């Protein structure tokens, strides 16, 4: 890499583009989370269950995110793996009011982490404990414990409680993610 590029990088001028994967069980709020990040004029007024996937783009602090918003429906979860290879970050959305399916979430997470395209690589994973406004929602700490997040040693991860309808907590999470991405890119260059 040339001197000029290095300089640009150092000063943080260069636009960084990263692909992130948004996964989670169905009805956990993935599309709603992404919808929140989109610029005002692109926002869709109603969110319907995703079939397959959607590609959305948004920016945060000079980093361009291309989000692959995957369908969480049981039938399509097998298709996530097609997109593992070229992602530089994962957003994992969990419905914190759905205690019953927490085990399913854990299983899906384990599958994800054990996948050959994921396991050896280092990239940030952001967990959203979504729907925190629901009355008997679990706290983010309990969810972290329930999913055994402490076992993830080789990747930076962060969990934050969120409410995608109002947008509470989303900004905090994505700022962490941006920070991580930036560090990662700087380390690599």
């Amino acid at each position, binding site marked *: 890499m040339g001197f000029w590029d290095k300089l640009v990088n150092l000063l943080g001028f260069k636009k960084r583009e990263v*692909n992130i994967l948004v996964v989670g069980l169905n009805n956990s709020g993935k599309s709603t989370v992404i919808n929140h990040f989109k610029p005002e004029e692109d926002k869709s007024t109603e969110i319907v*269950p*995703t079939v397959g996937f*959607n*590609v959305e783009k948004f920016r945060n602090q000079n980093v361009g995110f*291309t989000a692959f918003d995957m*369908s969480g429906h049981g039938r399509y979860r*097998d*298709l996530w793996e097609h997109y593992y290879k*070229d992602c530089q970050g994962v957003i994992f959305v969990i419905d914190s009011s759905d205690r019953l399916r927490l085990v399913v979430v854990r299983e899906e997470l384990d599958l994800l982490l054990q996948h050959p395209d994921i396991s050896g690589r280092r990239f940030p994973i952001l967990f959203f404990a979504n729907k925190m406004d629901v009355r008997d929602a679990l706290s983010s700490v309990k969810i972290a414990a329930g999913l055994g997040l402490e076992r993830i040693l080789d990747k930076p991860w962060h969990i934050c409680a969120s409410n995608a309808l109002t947008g509470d907590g989303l900004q905090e999470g994505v700022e962490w993610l941006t920070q991580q991405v930036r560090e990662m890119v700087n380390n690599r260059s």
Partner: protein
Amino acid sequence: MNAFKRDKKEEEEGGGNPFQNIEKTTVLQEARTFNDTPVNPRKCTHILTKILYLLNQGEQLGTTEATEAFFAMTKLFQSRDVILRRMVYLGIKELSGIAEDVIIVTSSLTKDMTGKEDLYRAAAIRALCSITDVTMLQAIERYMKQAIVDRNCAVSSAALVSSLHLTKIAGDVVKRWVNEAQEAVNSDSVMVQYHALGVLYHIRKSDRLAVNKLVAKLTRMSLKSPYAVCMLIRIACKLLEEEDSAEGGSSDSPLFEFIESCLRHKSEMVIYEAARAIVNLRRTTSRELAPAVSVLQLFCSSPKPTLRFAAVRTLNKVAMSHPAAVTACNLDLENLITDSNRSIATLTITTLLKTGAESSVDRLMKQIATFVSEISDEFKIVVVQAIRALCLKFPRKHGVLMNFLSAMLRDEGGLEYKASIADTIITIIEENPEAKETGLAHLCEFIEDCEHTSLAVRILHLLGKEGPRTKQPSRYIRFIYNRVILENAPVRAAAVAAMAQFGATCPDLLPNIQVVLLARCQMDTDDEVRDRATYYCSILEKQDKALANRYIVEGLQVWIPSLEKSLHQYTINPSDVPFDMKSVPLASIPSPEEIVNTSGKAVSREESYAEKLQSVPELVAFGPLFRSSEPVELTESETEYVVRCIKHCFPQHLILQFDCLNTLNDQLLENVHVQVEPPDGYQLVREIPCPRLPYSELGTTYVVLQFPDELGATVGTFNATLKFLVKDCDPATGLPDSDEGYDDEYMLEDVEVTLGDQIQKVTKANFGAAWEEAAASHCELEDTYSLSNMGTLEEAVKNIVSFLGMQPAERSDRVPEGKSSHTLFLAGVYRGGYDILVRAKLALAEGVTMQLTVRSTNADVAELVTSAVG
């Protein structure tokens, strides 16, 4: 300037195809670029183009390959490049049939389809509908309905056409969109209206009443789109045809009025469509035809070549059914003979040939000869067919036409073209005895220089059949023997067989053929040729006329595939008994219509029935199937239950196969069987009922009878009654309401077992010889009848042939015109393998008088035939 540059560049590259040398594996390798971030739109578009090119060239992708490429392609959705996105849609459509999990792009496509970018929407709809299956359709139904009534006409059209495609996989869902389609019919856009009508018609096409209503409504409202009007005309025609077949038809139907009014439409397309429709209607009378023909006549002088072509082509078709109506256009057609467009000129001439008088034939033939070498094979075939029709119409002109055909034969041309000429000459030879010698001479000349093995073999076979019976058989020998020296093995073998025919039929040529020619062929390098030569030589050496007749002139009478099967069976289970040829089913002689219809099918009727009967375990034991009759309807065609009967004749047994159809959707029939009351002598062996007969499924029940010992009693009628157990059921599900049912019966028409059912047709090429031979070995019966209800000899011949179910030999079923007497030769085999030969001398005098002579190997059979005729 720019264009000029590009031209020059292309010239340098030799104008070659840039995709000529691409390979599947390399392209799929390149497709991995799709996974790169950020996406390079130019590069990806190029690779996608390559993939599409390969697929359209017929390259097959495996499921894994396709799936991998497909998922790589889905990543291109992150690019906002318009061109790339549209290529992705195309790629999705192409791969949707091969790759797995294609529904992954559903949401992405739905987003594009409802998005703001108009360029994406129509294409996204098409791609979406190609990946959608029945289960997913519910999810996008709402968007489809919106798209159908969208203001953008490209979107609306795309949605309508996609719905049309979806009717194939999910007709019920599409039916719910009828209101939207109805609204789209009122659209201002020409295409949307047309497509909407298509969808509406498809949704309703199974319901005649609804289609009638639709047409009635639309004919009143005067559609804007000419395409839609054309479609409406076609639908109206279909309705008219159905009406006609149902109830005679009336000429002042509103539908017909509508079609006729379209002749005055302002769009040429509609006018032509209307004219074509009227011409093609089966029941059109010449009065109704007149306005249509005059419209076509106008088109003939149109400056647009397409219109002229269309008009002439349609007139060409009309000329077959209503030559008189086209005669009015002859003047306009004459002008088109010299049209600069060869296709138009050719069609014109063939049309004129059909309508013209005998006197104009020479002139037209001369005209067409000037440019026949310039037109394509396809049109040459049209010309040949016109000439064939002409030959049959004006037999006296065969000289001119035959010369023309032989000139065409000598020209360059493909197999199909040459075959059609040879066919025509063969037909002429068959129809017109005067043309035989010249025709054969032309064919002989043709095979001297014929590159098509199949044609040469066919002509040699024909020479073998016809040549010996001409005045000078010896002249053909040279042509045939030349083939033995010059050609490839199949032709040589055919030539040997043809020579043997001459040897067997012409005693004065025998020494030459046998000693010199066939003896030489025994040294041939090819096995088949040597085998044939040896076989024929040894037969001819015996000097036994009967033997030669049987094994050379007549050939094999059995159905070859069955013979092969029987021999195979015999070699599997060896026994001490020698193989019996009689156990092999005889080849049935297909009627001319059947030959036309079933040219592709290699199974005879008996063969297919035999296989079906073999599959019923109870029916295996009755020996080989001898003959199956044509299906006979035992009910009116539109009753509650439709029953057809097929009579299968076995050596000692008769199996009646009843194909039953239940047309009541609220009934389930069980234990369906047919009770027959056989006449005396027949023994009922068993009945095989059909256990379940649900709505609109074909069920089969069998009745097995043993023939009476006395042959005279085998002909008779059976009373038949359909008996069954009825269970009422729900029309929607087909499940019975309760387990209880009640017995019911239904009277059928009588089943008639005739003599013809028990006789299989046999061709005898040389009936005279066989007849003489039979004089000694067969017993003979003779009787005279008066057929008072027959008016003409043709009628009598036709009736006798169909009654006896035997094959006319030596084309004796054709009565020459203007004769008052005729001799008919028939040959057949009675069940059990008894040969029958019949000679019927007919004379016309107050009805027809017939002297019938029957020769058969079995006296009882002969008696049966004579008694049955009376």
